[in-house]
């Protein structure tokens, strides 16, 4: 064979070449490993991304369903609600008349008349909640001081005997830029809920904090709190935790706050994750635009 004739020098050269190739191969191996790892990482990230997107899509779909449900409910409410107001109006007039001409009626008669009158008011409240939900009027926004708005709400909805109200509102806060009627209605709803969460009495705290053109207005009760699964459905229309009530107050509130460029959040701080258990107290925070943010 020809190779037999190779010189020592030739052999040395071949050896060097071989070593080089081995080194190159090793390098390629490292590169391959690196690429594999990158690929793996990328595929994991892709999974995450898909998951994120899916969640966003699901949320969007849920929101759509919520809106659709509201729209259907709205149409129905518009029709039924308005038609109910006429007979409610006549009943309410008739009772007013009877109560006026019968000041000396016996106690049972008086009690029954009062019963009709208060049931009419209850019915009227349901109708107006339904109508508010079906058609949120465009917000007529103006400047209003938080302290004034809160004072108006508490005047309209004074606390029951056993509930004490504390307000912590600094005097140097910028004015809100909202529809005072709509936001007032939201606060009335939240305050009523808070009162009702404390049937045995307790403290209601209303705080306002301004931050970066926004006002954080929070209403805290010392009631039994809200469980996690209820919390998730709280703003859905027709979801209620009350024995009386059809579950429109918070859905209406959410719509009204959003119509004013704000948002609403709920916290029930120490609520444990285990089912059925609830923490102590709830805080609803309404985030609203201030006048500062508009200029």
């Amino acid at each position: 064979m020809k190779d037999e004739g190779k010189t020592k020098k030739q052999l040395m050269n071949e050896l060097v070449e071989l070593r080089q190739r081995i080194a190159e191969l090793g390098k390629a191996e490292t590169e391959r490993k690196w690429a594999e790892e990158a690929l793996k990482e990328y595929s994991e990230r892709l999974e995450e991304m898909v998951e994120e997107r899916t969640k966003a899509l699901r949320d969007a779909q849920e929101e759509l369903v919520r809106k659709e449900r509201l729209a259907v409910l709205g149409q129905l409410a518009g029709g039924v609600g308005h038609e109910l107001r006429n007979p409610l109006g006549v009943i309410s007039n008739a009772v007013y008349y009877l109560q006026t001409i019968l000041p000396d009626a016996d106690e049972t008669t008086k009690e029954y008349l009062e019963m009709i009158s208060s049931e009419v008011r209850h019915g009227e409240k349901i109708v107006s909640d339904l109508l508010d939900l079906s058609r949120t009027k465009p917000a007529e926004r103006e400047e209003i001081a938080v302290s004034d708005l809160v004072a108006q709400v508490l005047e309209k909805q004074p606390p029951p005997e056993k509930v004490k109200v504390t307000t912590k509102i600094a005097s140097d806060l910028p004015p809100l830029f909202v529809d005072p009627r709509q936001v007032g209605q939201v606060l009335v709803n939240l305050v009523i809920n808070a009162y009702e969460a404390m049937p045995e009495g307790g403290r209601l705290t209303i705080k306002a904090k301004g931050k970066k053109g926004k006002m954080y207005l929070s209403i805290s009760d010392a009631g039994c709190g809200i469980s996690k699964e209820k919390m998730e459905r709280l703003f859905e229309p027709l979801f209620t935790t009350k024995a009386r009530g059809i579950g429109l107050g918070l859905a209406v509130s959410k719509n009204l706050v959003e119509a004013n460029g704000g948002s609403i959040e709920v916290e029930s701080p120490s609520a444990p994750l285990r089912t059925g258990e609830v923490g102590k107290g709830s805080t609803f925070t309404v985030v609203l635009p201030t006048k500062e943010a508009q200029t």
Partner: protein
Amino acid sequence: MSEKLRILIVDDDRRMANTLSDIFKVKGYEAQAAYSGPEALDMVKKGRFDCVLTDIKMPQMNGVRLCRAIKAIQPDLPVVLMTAYSADVLVKEGLEEGVIASLTKPLDINLLLGFFSSLRKERSIVIVDDDPQFCKTLGEILRARDFAVTQVIDPHKVVEALRRDAQVVLLDMKLNSISGLEVLKEIRAQFPHLPVILVTGYREEMSPAIEAALKINAYTRLYKPLQIETLLQLLSEVRHRELGRVLGQPVRKRKRVKR
């Protein structure tokens, strides 16, 4: 006004019109019911009424059209709308047409009774000016138009004078012993919503004070010599707003007139 207030109630739902008129009669008013727009219009033409309370949605002639027709006959007759449809476009149209307010059914009767008693009240005005001659002449003009006028020449006694049921204040911005702005602040501290119309003869000199006064919610300003027609128009605008406020109609800020 010793006579009974005369109220016309219009609703195509007869039970609504009848129950309301029965309530108002029991409460000491003279009330009549009409069941359609044309019928109501006929009654306005024939008789005298002090207030019309009408439903909006009625066949033939709706409440807003009725209001327009009434204003053509008797422009100063206060019209109040009532409706089951709170977000109706007609409500907005009615407010532009000059109705006092639009109420949602079921009606808050006590609110309406409060409104009727405001309607019965004499229109009263307090004039604050340290020029006795000005007070006297303007006072006579307004009295001739059935206003109850109180004149205050000593600006330190304004708040005292206001205790007696004032509906509107005419305040001179340049007084001898105290600035008009200070008086306004005193008034605001006691009566946050009372409409105060500023008056001045010194346009340029007083303009910073007037700006400051408008900021703390003075109603508007007038310049001397006063145009009586302008003043009267302003006074009926103030009354319209105040009556609306009694019925819970939200009070809009008066548009600032740029000069």
